């Protein structure tokens, strides 16, 4: 007998390790049934639960206790139970709630994509596209902030922040001497460094990578180009501080940005140090591995290389192949 746990999401079953969250179980299945996530970040301990974009309906609690859960739950922070049945895109209640969450997130987030450096890589942009409505019902003044530089390499534009806390977890977990956190409460809360201190730490640049929106940006890259015109390439170097595995973003012959490599959910595979990110922008500093695989969902993939590469559970299971059919077709059309 296996000690794996069977969970069914939108009618598709999968067996996962005990302790797996609903979100991660869904990610193992892949495709359209994966709930969106704005605050969860698998590499950051304790993240998730906040943005509420990943809400799902548990229509059957478990084999032992089949009662449905009374409220929608955050899939990123709810552990699967044997026999659990979950509805994501098959529940109108979930889609309705998600629409609500997107509307809330956009209240104090300016849709300034045309002038935002994160355009094309912004999770909120994707989320609004998939779950948002065309117009807003909010008619009040929105909160705005002046941009501040936190150190010479990172700029914070709080106006765009959605308070996902990811950068706070990075500052807490992978930099020492934390000076970065949240001040204030409710919609007056803001990300700040201790009396506008710089974050001076070898790994501080990772706050930029985890920010799902354009609130934290790389000052060495700002306004150099739109991402979809750049050419991403995987490369590595022998680095004494980190793995040295990065993505280089080229404009013509020049490396204009260096980031961590991100997986299909936009999460850094490994965090990188500031030397790799900011100081080594010559091709000769790097060993080039080849073109970067960009999620076919992303606008960056336009004019680039990849087709959908389904995870192995999908490739081997006829039912999953069938349920992802629409997605395969959409991708092939592109």
């Amino acid at each position: 007998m296996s000690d794996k746990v069977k969970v069914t999401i939108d009618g598709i079953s999968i067996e996962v390790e005990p302790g797996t969250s609903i979100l991660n179980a869904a990610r193992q299945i892949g495709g359209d049934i994966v709930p969106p996530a704005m605050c969860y970040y698998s590499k950051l301990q304790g993240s998730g639960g906040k943005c509420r974009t990943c809400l799902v309906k548990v229509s059957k609690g478990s084999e032992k206790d089949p009662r449905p859960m009374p409220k929608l739950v955050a899939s990123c922070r709810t552990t699967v139970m044997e026999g659990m049945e979950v509805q994501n895109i098959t529940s109108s209640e979930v889609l309705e709630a998600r629409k609500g969450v997107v509307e809330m997130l956009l209240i104090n987030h300016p849709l300034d994509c045309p002038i935002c450096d994160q355009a094309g890589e912004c999770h909120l942009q994707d989320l609004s596209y998939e779950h948002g409505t065309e117009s807003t019902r909010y008619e009040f003044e929105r909160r705005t902030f002046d941009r501040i530089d936190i150190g010479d390499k990172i700029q914070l534009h709080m106006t765009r922040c959605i308070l996902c806390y990811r950068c706070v977890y990075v500052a807490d977990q992978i930099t020492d001497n934390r000076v970065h956190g949240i001040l204030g409460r409710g919609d007056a809360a803001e990300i700040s460094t201790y009396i506008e201190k710089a974050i001076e730490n070898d790994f501080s640049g990772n706050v930029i990578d985890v920010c799902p929106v354009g609130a934290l940006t790389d000052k060495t890259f700002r306004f150099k180009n739109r991402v979809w015109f750049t050419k991403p390439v995987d490369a590595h170097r022998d680095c004494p501080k980190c793995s040295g595995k990065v993505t280089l973003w080229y404009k013509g012959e020049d490396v204009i940005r260096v980031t961590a490599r991100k997986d299909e959910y936009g999460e850094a595979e490994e965090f990188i140090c500031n030397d790799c990110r900011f100081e080594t922008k010559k091709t000769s500093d790097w060993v080039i591995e080849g073109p970067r695989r960009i999620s076919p969902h992303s606008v960056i993939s336009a004019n680039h290389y990849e087709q959908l590469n389904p995870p192995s559970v999908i490739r081997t299971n006829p039912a999953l192949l069938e349920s992802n059919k629409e997605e395969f077709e959409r991708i092939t059309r592109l």
Partner: protein
Amino acid sequence: MGRKLLLENINVPGINTFEVYRQKGGYRAVEKALKSMSPEDVVEEVKKSGLRGRGGAGFPTGMKWSFLAKPEGKPRYLVCNGDESEPGTFKDRYLMTYIPHLLIEGMIVSSYALGANTSYIYVRGEMMPQIRILEKAIAEAKNAGLLGKNILGSGYDLELYVQPGGGAYICGEETALIESLEGKRGNPRIKPPFPAISGLYNCPTVVNNVESIAATVPIINDGADEYAKMGIGRSTGTKLISASGNLNKPGVYEIELGVSVEEFIYSDEYCGGIANGKRMKAVVAGGSSVPILPANLILKTANGENRLITYESLADGGFATGTMLGSGGFVVFDEDQCIVRNTWNYSRFYHHESCGQCSPCREGTGWMEKVLHRLEYGHGKLSDIDLLVDVSKKIEGNTICPLGDAAAWPVASAIRHFRDEFEWHVTHPDEAMQRNYGLAHYADPLPKPEGVTAN
């Protein structure tokens, strides 16, 4: 006269001092529990009493205690929730101020039951006088050998501390309270794990309201059966009610659960009726977060029975026609009060107090407040009313902690029962604008959050 348990001796001169409290039979429950009962016996007794948490949710206290994990080598904690920030609720402060030793005694008995050797009373930071009172009471109890090492020779040790709170409503939510006690920002934690498994410093922890803890004293003194004889059905014992608003005699009352709402409001034993001979318009029965009910529905349930002050009777009919006992903050409005203004006022509070972790609460509470503000001042539209209902639905049930619900329910229920009043504000903008409650300064445009610059 209804029987009283917690406030039985409240009018005895000097009951706030150790000597008088002791003379009146104080600390008998400690002696009884530590000398003649095992911790399990105490838990059993509290379970049998049917006591339900008096902090708002009404969860059975004994059951909560029995969920406490008992791992070897890890301390367990009891934390008393004296944050008391719910608008309309002021009973715990009353108890802490005037009969502090009852709380200390309850803390000793409850800590013993849970096997906690360090316990905390977390008191709202603004309540400095109460913090001083409790500190003095703790020192007195310690001098008398009722706290510290080897209490009354029983071999049981307990250190008790008072911790001033962070001064935010959210710090009353049990997991935010724990975070705050640990010295962090008072953000609610995501549950599970529940505090009974992983609470303060990741150790098993019980968080209980002041009144719940105080109630363990009469339960141990007189026995669970005696306690359970009071009240009705699953609402046993007595309850402190903080009554405020347009009443002849506002104040803190101890009632036997099961007193009818009508008797509570109109009898001379309690609130003595509505002030100035006015009629009653509405009641918020359990602190600002519970749904408001119009006079007819608070006095009678939907099928015409007398509404009683019990968990069940107040909730009868669900939110369509009922409400909740909550923390027992009874706010009574007379016919002259404006429901829209009050709803806006509550909404202002929840907007201000949202911790800001989850998007629906962080953004939605502010949105509701602003829409209510313009409705109240006659700038609203009819569609605003449905907008409010919709926004409240988008918040309700979709957040980490119940503050989201607490912000949504007052708005949704006020519109459910008093929609015509909201519409009046839209159809009579001039009259709405001209009403002045002597609070003209509130009519200023909304203050901006800090950090806001011009667009």
